[in-house]
Structure formats: C-alpha cells, structure tokens
C-alpha cells in the first residue's frame, strides 16, 4: 500500500486528519492545449479526488488521452499547471499503462524483469528488486509464469504485467489509457476484475480512460464526462456501489440509473457536435 493511500485509509477509519481526507489529490488549473486544427483544452480546471478510481468518458477524439498524457507529462501542455498535493510531476511517482501492451512491454526482457525495470531505473539493488516483485505478485495473487518473455503470454497476461510494472514503484497515481480495448471480451471481463482487485488492495488514486460506458461506471467511484473539444467537464458523476462489485451489481437499479444518466449526457454531447 502506498503511504498516501495508507493515510487515506487511516483517515477514513479514525476520522483523523479531516482536511487530508477531502483535499483533492491532483489539481489541474488553467490547462490549455491546441493542435494546428483544433483547440483541445482551453483553461481547463479539474480536481482529481484522492484514493478514488475515476473513469474519463467522452466522444471520440475529445481529448481523453491528451488529458492524462498532459497530467503524466507525456504531452506538453501549452499552459496551465498540474500539481500533485502541491508538488510538480517531477517529484511524484506515478504509473502509466498503455493501451498497446505489445508495444509497451520490452520483449527482450522476461516478464519479471519488465516489472522490475522501473526499480532498476531508481537504482534499487537487484536482490531488493526481486523481493519487491515477489511481494507484489503475492499481494495481487497473480498466477503467471513471470520467467517467460512477454510474447509467450496472452494479451490479458501481458496487460497484467504492464499494470504490475506500473504498480511496482508504489505510485501515488495510476493512469490507464483504454487498457483493455485491445483484448477480447472474455479477457476484458477478467481484467476488469483484476483492476478492481488491484484498486481495492492498494487504494491508489486511479484515472482510467475508457470507451466503454458499462466498464467506466462499473469500475469507478466517479465518471468524468467530457464534452467535444475544447473539452469541458459535462458532469462528474458519482457512483458509490460497494466493492467488490460483481455481475449482480450491473443489474442493480443504481447502476442502471447511473449508466442511463451518463448515456443521456453523452448522447446529448454527441448530437450537439
């Protein structure tokens, strides 16, 4: 568990440190981004809550990837600032999971070394790297032969390795950009459960870009609905069904209502364009 997540958990249980409990984890202020043919963000403001899983949902090409890429420093913003508990990105440990796991993992390293690679970059000695990967594996209950090279693993297993590589540094924030969209349906369902499990175990602040509304609602505490670009927040929809959520959750009225509400807003957005 990360220290940030731990403090949230203890804050919740004891009522201690009330201010931290409600303080947002990531603050986005005045973020602007334009490409030659479009303004994607124009003075965008948003707060990402701590220890929650939020899904970003919106029309195609509205700027979902651009948003998390700017927050994670993969794409430079034209202006504006993003702070993690008041600190800049350079002082924050975060994890990022790409949609295209095939091209994100290193095929020359066995899965185990892929997961340990961020630790190697941090200068963690070999013995400790091994220990920490083993601990993470045990913690998540992962059953994959990590001595294999990634290309011997199934798509879902590869993406799970990617997620573990992102988690190994005990990130404060975890970003995932459509992590399951390259997987078949069966694997997608399985991976949703894995992600939910990871989230319940670590309580890491998580931002998930999804193009699947059912998935977005099912997994998250909030759905961030974006408009067409220049993207605004259409609504930040809370969904607080208890975890672990199961297939049954999806037939409950609160789930159906939340999904219907999001869909209505989304369709309104799409037609508006």
């Amino acid at each position: 568990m990360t220290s940030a997540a731990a403090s949230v958990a203890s804050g919740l249980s004891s009522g201690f440190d009330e201010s931290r409990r409600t303080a947002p984890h990531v603050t986005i202020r005045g973020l602007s981004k334009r490409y030659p043919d479009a303004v994607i963000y124009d003075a965008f403001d948003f707060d990402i809550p701590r220890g929650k899983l939020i899904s970003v949902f919106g029309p195609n090409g509205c700027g979902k990837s651009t948003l998390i890429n700017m927050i994670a420093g993969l794409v430079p913003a034209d202006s504006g600032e993003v702070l993690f508990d008041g600190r800049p990105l350079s002082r924050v440990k975060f994890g990022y999971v790409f949609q295209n796991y095939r091209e994100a993992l290193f095929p020359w390293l066995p899965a185990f070394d892929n997961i340990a690679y961020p630790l190697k970059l941090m200068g963690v000695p070999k013995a400790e790297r091994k220990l920490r990967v083993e601990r993470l594996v045990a913690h998540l209950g992962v059953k994959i032969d990590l001595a294999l090279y990634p290309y011997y693993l199934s798509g879902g297993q590869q993406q799970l390795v990617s997620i573990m590589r992102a988690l190994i540094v005990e990130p404060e924030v975890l970003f995932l950009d459509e992590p399951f969209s390259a997987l078949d349906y069966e694997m997608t369902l399985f991976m949703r459960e894995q992600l939910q499990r990871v989230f319940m175990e670590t309580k890491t602040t998580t931002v998930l870009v999804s193009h699947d509304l059912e998935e977005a609602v099912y997994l998250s505490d909030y759905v961030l609905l974006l408009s067409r670009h220049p993207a605004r927040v259409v609504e930040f929809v809370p969904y607080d069904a208890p975890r672990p959520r199961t297939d049954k959750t999806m037939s409950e009225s609160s789930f159906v209502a939340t999904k219907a509400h999001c869909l209505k807003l989304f369709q309104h957005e799409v037609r508006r364009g």
Partner: protein
Amino acid sequence: MTGRQQIARALLPLVGVAMLLAVWTLVNGLKLVDPVLLPSPTETFRTLWEGMTSGKLGVDFVKTVARTISSTAIAAVIAIPLGILLGSSEKLYRSVEFLIDFFRSTPASAMFPLFLVLFGVGDRTKISVAAFGAGLVILFNVAYGVMNARKTRLLAAKVMGASRTRVLFDVMLLESLPQTFVGLRNGVSLALVIIVVAEMFIGSTDGLGQRVFEAQQLFDMPGMYAAIFAAGALGYALNLLFLLIERRFVHWAGR
C-alpha cells in the same frame, strides 16, 4: 504432425538438390554438353573434396573467409555506433541521408581504382573496399532501426523516468537489433561479393576469386566448378551463421 511427416518435411529441401544432380548426371552421361566444359558431378565433387582437404583450394577458402570476416568486422565496428548516433537524431540522419543513399547506390567495384591509389595492390585495398560497401549497408540499417524504434516503448521508458542515455541503451539499441542484423547479413554478403571480385582482378595470388579465375585460365574445369561451389557454400554458411546468431540474440524479432 507425425514423426514420419516431420522427416518428410525436413527432407523437402533436398528434392531440388537431387533434381539438379540428376539432370547434371543425365546431361553428362548423354554427352549433351561437351564433357570438357561440364565434368561429371562425381569428378567435380572429388576435386572439391580433395582441394578442400589437402589441396590449395582449402587455403584459398580460408583466405577469403578471413578477408570477408575482417572487412565485415571493420564495417560493423565503424557503422554500428555511427548508425546509432545518426538514428538517434532524425535531423542529423536527414542531413546525411542523401550522401549515404548515393554511396550505397554506387557500385563498390567502381571504387577499386580509388582505393588502389590509396592502399596499393594488396589485402588492404580488398578489405577496405569491402568494408566500405558493407559499412554503408550496415549504417543505413542500424540508423533506420534506431529511428523506427516503437514510439510507445520509448514513451514507456520515459514515463518510468528513464534518462535520455538510459532510453538509448535500454530501449533504442535493443529495438534496433533486428534491423542491425538485417544490415549485418546483407553487409557480409556484399563483402563476400566484393572480396571475390577483388581476388579475381586485383593482382591476387590467393583466395577463392583468384582460384576460380586461375582454373578458368588453365582450362581446369573441375577445379573451376569446385571453387565456385566452395564460394557458394561460403556465402550460404555466412548467411546461416548470422541467422543463427540473430535467433540467439534477437529472440523477440518478428514476435
């Protein structure tokens, strides 16, 4: 697949060889071609065997191998680091791209006179022309391999906090390895071609090229065919060798 089917499949490549030998034997037996111009397969392979084991052919073979390998090695030592340097900056590569393409398109044989002036008649000329030709092929492939490194992989390394040098050594270099091996294989083939031609025409006293040429001059047809087969086997073996090294070191290529 059953064991028998597997064996049958493994033997398939030998069918073509058997056919060639059959046609050759037939043509020779029926005297369709003057036997002086086309000796029998048995005679040719006996000459090849004797030449390789106890005659001068073996010495020539080793000479050509040594020249080809050293020119490829020189080419690789210069071209691989240079290719990585050029490939890591697209601007840099674009600025010299025309030069590389131009000299890559120039027949290396056209460079012989120049290199003769520079290095005289000897091994240095042969090896340096071959290294020049192979080097350009390797350079071009390495640079492209580095430039075409998967963007996601570079981003992944960057997002994990890898410095520019780390990205270069941990990602770009490995990403470019498959293409580097393509360059090495093409390079060694080209080096062999250049070396053999050089041995024929640039006052050489040994080597497979000289051997072929001399056998032809002396009208020693079995000797000539034997030398040609030796050169063919060498080219094939070098390619195979690099393929095997590649499989071993670039196990992920094409996966």
